[in-house]
């Protein structure tokens, strides 16, 4: 059998953490962009578009991420579309994140009193001007804590990508534990690494919140 030193375990976990970070960034950026586009489409207020996006949100909120990843990788292949784990993970994580973010942000925009829209109307602002100058700056402040809370969830959710062959932090830990039979050491380190990834995000969100409110 192989003998892992503590350093071997930590070194391999750190290497695997690169995947966790990369997948998280893909989810943040892809999901953020798509989520924002969906938000604008929804604010436009077309009845059909609105209903389609609501259905989209329900589908991705109502099914487990594990299943979405599985279907994106194996399901598309069954339909004759060859996918690489990369494409499947990027696709599934982007769709999943965008569905949650667009719903979170819609709620933030909806919490802005109607009077603000009407006041902007009375100044003859166009739709994009209303969003840019009146509604979004106010909604942004409200959106920071729920958005960051969700992003921290996504970081931990990337562990599910191991089902389509990504050797990220959690999967690497499983593999090492199976070779070392020291689950408590390995999973203890993994918990610590996840904390080191998630804590700075939460901390930064607190700072951002204070900064945004200082301007009031």
């Amino acid at each position: 059998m192989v003998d892992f030193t503590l350093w071997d375990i930590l070194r391999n976990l750190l290497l695997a953490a690169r995947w966790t970070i990369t997948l998280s960034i893909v989810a943040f950026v892809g999901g953020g962009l798509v989520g924002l586009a969906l938000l604008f489409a929804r604010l436009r207020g077309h009845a059909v578009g609105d209903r389609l996006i609501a259905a989209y949100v329900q589908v991705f909120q109502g099914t487990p991420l594990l299943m979405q990843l599985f279907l994106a990788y194996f399901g598309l292949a069954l339909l004759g579309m060859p996918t690489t784990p990369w494409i499947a993970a990027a696709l599934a994580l982007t769709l999943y994140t965008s569905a949650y973010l667009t719903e979170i942000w819609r709620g933030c925009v909806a919490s802005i009193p109607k009077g603000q829209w009407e006041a902007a109307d009375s100044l003859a602002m166009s739709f994009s001007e209303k969003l840019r100058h009146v509604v979004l700056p106010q909604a942004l402040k409200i959106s920071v804590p729920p958005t960051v809370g969700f992003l921290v969830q996504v970081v931990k959710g990337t562990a599910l990508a191991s089902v389509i062959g990504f050797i990220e932090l959690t999967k690497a830990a499983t593999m090492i534990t199976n070779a070392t039979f020291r689950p408590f050491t390995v999973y203890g380190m993994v918990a610590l690494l996840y904390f080191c990834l998630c804590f700075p995000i939460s901390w930064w969100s607190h700072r951002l919140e204070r900064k945004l409110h200082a301007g009031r």
Partner: protein
Amino acid sequence: MKPLFRLLAPLALAVLASGAHAQAVLDDVMAKKVIVIAIPTDFPPYGFVGTDMAPKGLDIDMATYIGDKLGVKTELVPVTSANRIAYLQTKKADLVISTLGKNPEREKVIDFTVAYSPFFQAIFGPKTITVKTPADLAGKSIAVTRGAIEDQELTKIAPPGTEIKRFEDNNATVSAFLAGQTQLMATGASVAGNMMARNPNFDAEYKILLKDSPNFIGVAKGEDKLRTKVNDILVAGKKSGDLDKLSQKWLGRPAGDLPQ
């Protein structure tokens, strides 16, 4: 995972039955000079990782052996017991060499070659607990890996009142048992052997045999050309003693009589 797989399996069959790829895998492999083989990384000594995270073990040696005999490069894909059949059905792997036992349920969705290595599942536990027959299991808690052969066998023989706790992979099963969350553990002999060697103070021992189930290589349904070719390699390997050498190296005993 398992309900999902059941959901997907008919869909997979429908697509495969369309015949778009039937019989083509061996030709593809020979043309590309690469064979993609799914292997385990969570099942020592069949498949596990070294300090460089590179997979090694009996299944990995078997995979490279087949690649060598075909005269092509072997590309290894790490899989788990939950997704290994999906890899085969969606052509993301040409062969699955991943301690795959043969059962009628699996035979409906994939094909098998002849056996390549021995394997058996059993119940293990500390010496302080007496378990001689399945009836002794009543009132005891047992850790087992969900969907594995030992899960099905255990479910069959366990009397009412047995508390079966299912975990997603072998590693979680062993961890639960070692942490004292269950009194007994049902698993493959090799996993238990390793666990006992690593934790001598735990004083665990073999209790009841669940099933003698040698390992087979999985091939996508209908890929008879590839299956026949791999069978030829295995039969020749058995005759020349190569398979025995592999078993001796990783399991400490020769392959013995394997079903054809």
